[in-house]
């Protein structure tokens, strides 16, 4: 049996990598990928904890819902990014700064 700490550590690493992708990558799609990393990290946590929750199955159920929600969010997000690409001809968030103070 793999201890919880292992799972937690892997998920923490994945979370941080995702965070890095979100902040550092100059590409909107990479930001989405970063978000997916974080969601996956969370799902990993959930299933790892969910192993000890046989009564409610909350962990796994939450994980499944999270996957579905993430997928929907990605679909909408990608559609929006495509819209942006049509207007700006770029998906680099650095260059999409018409709205600012």
């Amino acid at each position, binding site marked *: 049996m793999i201890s919880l700490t292992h799972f937690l550590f892997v998920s923490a690493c994945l979370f941080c990598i*995702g965070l*890095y992708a979100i902040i550092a990558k100059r590409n909107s799609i990479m930001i989405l990928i970063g978000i997916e990393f974080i969601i996956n990290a969370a799902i990993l946590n959930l299933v790892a904890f969910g192993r000890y929750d046989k009564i409610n199955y909350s962990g796994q159920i939450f994980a499944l819902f999270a996957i579905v929600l993430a997928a*929907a969010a990605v679909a909408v997000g990608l559609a929006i990014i495509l819209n942006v690409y049509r207007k700006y001809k770029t998906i680099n968030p650095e260059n999409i700064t018409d709205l600012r103070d």
Partner: protein
Amino acid sequence: MELAIFYAFAALVIGSALLVVSLKNTARSLFLFFIVLFGMAGLFIFALADFVAITQIMVYVGGVLILMIFAFMLSNKELLADLQNTSSKFLSIPNWQSLLLSIGFLAVMSYGIIEWHDNFPQWITENIRQGNIIKSSDNNINQLGIKFMTQYLLPFEVISIFLLAALIGAAHLSRKEDPK
């Protein structure tokens, strides 16, 4: 043995994830992302969540990743040129601020996990004691099905509406406005 395989999967996930974020070429990153997701599915199995792992592969690999590649191709006409580009700059230079931030997060979270290490929550120990934990012999799919239709019926139904709305919305969003 189990642990070794776990480490292998973990290394695969973290390694390819690191490559995903450090590669300069987005197309390559996308393909590496595929590996990350597979690796994650493997890890899920270690947590005895086989159904989740399968869903992961079906939804992510089958849906999300394909969507992303399509989107990427639609938004990047130089894709092929990009793929052929084997310049010396294979990796992108890390952005130090974000690196610092990520490492900072990693540090505090590791600190937290290590601190937590010996002291797992009461509910887990209680469940272990009572044997209320998922065993590899359990039929997860069966259990999940019952839970979805009873205890989690409401979110299950709500999410259908949600998916419909997201579908319509995504369709509308990505529809090109026809020239008048």
